[in-house]
């Protein structure tokens, strides 16, 4: 039996995984991947089966935990945003060397257009780099189907499989047909080749040769994949390679019937035979792919010697920002101005009354009081520098606070403030949230503690992971102990409630600790008002 459900791309995949016998999901929240683990946490089958779904401290720990479960023969997955894969890169790349025992899916959700991210990196490069297969769903239904398919592929090829999402699929809902009867979980069983899991040079050398030899079977799997499709077309002046969601935009432009032959790509490594078939039968190729020009680069090569290839590198497809039906339409018109059957495009121009409305910290958010106090404390210094981090409090960069000088990656506030202090910067202040602190701030703090670096670290603790919608934070209730346990001087680990009435006191506290010649930590604490509201609502109900 099948039922129809309305699901986000993220949710469709999570449900597909549960229905395919998932035993453990591991993740750190990050837009647009967060809803995958959230779905597992709420799903009745997952709860009944006790499928693991706690948040991990960061993407690296999540990846390793999932790998450990795969070692024991069970199906596991880890999900993260694209930049999370940077954090998990060490275990990720090495998981290609260990291979998988139980099916292992690594979900990376890219954010082209940077709706809520700091760059547009394309996770397909990572799969290529690690030499492992990748699936790129183009619809919510494919996202659902690819979970079971991916587990099976991972077990058959004995390798982790990457599943690449993009924001528009992760955060778009559609009707999905799902199975009613979840498959049983795998039983505990150990790898057939245990030596492969000990990555010491002697074993790794042998394994590396195997991984290289396996590329052929990975490619064959792509060639035979039900998700890669060759669609005939009458007009052979252009052949179109369209991957992931770009395929949808192409279909939208021609209402489902493009006049050109199309190769839809949703599984990598690239199916070379199918590409060859398209290339041989057409005068030129147009490559439509969401993200960076991954396919186009491979097709073009260094010498770019063959038929004309249109794409992002040739300037025929927009290179930055996400694609849209409009961007794809413009590219097709550029390549074939005489094409018939395209949709019309805009009729009304932009309204000149409209102004931009940037996001801001919620009214009543505790971070506001922290910034008010910090700005007041720093007003007396000539050139204070404040190193920010990733979270709601990054919005402290915007007016009216204009309070931070940098925002780079998870945890970089503390380590960059340390480097700045080492360089002679005074005052050097780091501001980091509680969840980001336990994700990647603790190790940097240890560096600063060990050298008693003269700097102030503010941990603005809202008792949650606020930016992504209020997930449990791993350090809640433990932050002072963590700092003291790392060896911070107890006289300079101080705590205050970040309430409007405490702004003056907070300012004094910041000033004292800035003047302290050594490392200070101030934990300013107030629950995120969004989660507080939800908690209050839950109590009432």
């Amino acid at each position, binding site marked *: 039996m099948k039922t129809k459900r309305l699901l986000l791309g993220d949710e469709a995949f999570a449900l597909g995984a549960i229905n395919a016998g998932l035993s453990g999901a591991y993740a750190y929240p990050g837009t647009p991947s967060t809803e995958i683990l959230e779905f597992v946490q709420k799903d009745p089958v997952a709860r009944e089966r006790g499928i693991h779904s706690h948040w991990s401290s960061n993407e690296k720990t999540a990846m390793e935990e999932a790998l450990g479960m795969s070692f024991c023969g069970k199906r596991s997955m880890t999900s993260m945003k694209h930049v999370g894969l940077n954090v998990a890169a060490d275990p990720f790349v090495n998981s290609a060397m260990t291979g998988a025992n139980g099916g292992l899916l690594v979900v990376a959700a890219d954010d082209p257009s940077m709706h*809520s991210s700091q760059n547009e990196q394309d996770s397909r490069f990572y799969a290529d780099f690690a030499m492992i297969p990748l699936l790129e769903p183009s619809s919510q239904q494919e996202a659902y189907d690819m979970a079971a398919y991916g587990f099976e592929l991972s077990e058959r090829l004995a390798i982790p499989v990457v599943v690449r999402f993009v924001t528009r699929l992760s*955060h778009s809902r*559609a*009707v999905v047909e799902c199975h009613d009867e979840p498959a049983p979980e795998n039983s505990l069983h150990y790898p057939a080749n245990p030596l492969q899991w000990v990555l010491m040079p002697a074993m790794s050398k042998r394994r590396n040769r195997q991984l290289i030899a396996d590329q052929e079977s990975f490619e064959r799997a792509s060639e035979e994949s039900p998700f890669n499709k060759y669609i005939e077309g009458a007009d052979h002046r252009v052949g179109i390679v369209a991957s992931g969601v770009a395929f949808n*935009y192409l279909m939208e432009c021609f209402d*489902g019937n493009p006049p050109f032959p199309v190769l839809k790509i949703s599984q990598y490594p690239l199916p070379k035979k199918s590409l060859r078939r398209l290339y041989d039968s057409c005068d030129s190729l147009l490559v439509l792919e969401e993200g960076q020009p991954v396919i186009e680069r491979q097709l073009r090569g260094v010498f770019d010697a063959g038929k004309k290839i249109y794409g992002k590198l040739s300037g025929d497809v927009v290179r930055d920002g996400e694609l849209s*039906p409009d961007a794809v339409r413009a590219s097709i018109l550029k390549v074939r101005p005489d094409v018939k059957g395209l949709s019309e495009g805009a009729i009304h121009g932009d309204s000149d009354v409209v102004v931009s409305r940037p*996001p801001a910290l919620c009214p009543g958010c505790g971070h506001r009081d922290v910034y008010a106090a910090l700005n007041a404390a720093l007003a007396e210094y000539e050139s204070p520098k404040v190193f920010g981090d990733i979270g709601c409090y990054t919005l402290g960069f915007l007016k009216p606070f204009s309070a931070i000088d940098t925002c780079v990656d998870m945890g970089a506030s503390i380590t960059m403030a340390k480097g700045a202090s080492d360089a002679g910067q005074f005052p050097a202040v780091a501001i980091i949230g509680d969840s980001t602190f336990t994700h990647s701030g603790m190790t940097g703090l240890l560096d600063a503690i060990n050298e008693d670096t003269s700097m102030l670290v503010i941990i603005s603790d809202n008792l949650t992971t606020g930016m*992504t919608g209020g997930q449990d934070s791993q350090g809640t209730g433990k932050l002072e102990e963590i700092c003291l346990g790392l060896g911070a001087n107890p006289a300079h680990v101080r705590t205050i409630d970040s309430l409007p009435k405490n702004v003056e006191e907070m300012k004094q506290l910041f000033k004292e600790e800035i003047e302290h010649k050594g490392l200070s930590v101030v934990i300013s604490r107030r629950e995120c008002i969004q989660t507080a509201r939800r908690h209050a609502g839950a109590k009432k109900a």
Partner: protein
Amino acid sequence: MKTDIVLAGVGGQGILTIATILGAAALKENLFLKQAEVHGMSQRGGDVQSNLRISSSPIHSDLIPLGGADLIVSLEPMEALRYLPYLKESGWIVTNTQPFVNIDNYPEMEKVEAELARHPHVVAFNMDEVAKEVATARSSNLVLLGAASPFIEMDPEKITEAIAAVFGSKGEKIVESNIAAFREGRVRATEKM
């Protein structure tokens, strides 16, 4: 049938509830649906929009092309204007006229109203007031859904059923008040069409 809707508003105003209700109704009616929304940083008081596409045949893209929307449905007047390039020639704008001012340079209301008035197909009224009159201050989004409903080829009774299903867990009273807001929105829009 095929209706492409750009839902607009400011983060936290509740436009996604409208999408949830129409989604539930579409699912029940065996229609196809795609609904793209934005999460994360942009939700914090910034402009938010959601593309909602409902159709009796399969839908390709999660995003509505420029010039492709049948409707712009907005909880805020300036936000309605932000998406004009997405509107079809024959498309309608259905919007609340109560501004949400959380920026210093919000345009003068006369200018916003004039720009809306220039458009041939507009249903605009103060939905916050109507919500307060017939339900609660928080139901302006249901008034808006009601006002948009004459432009969506779906039986309004089916939408009412979906409202009951979506709010069911919150109790009879909330369901009734939301349905009242929906009905009043529909009546007001029909008067203005």
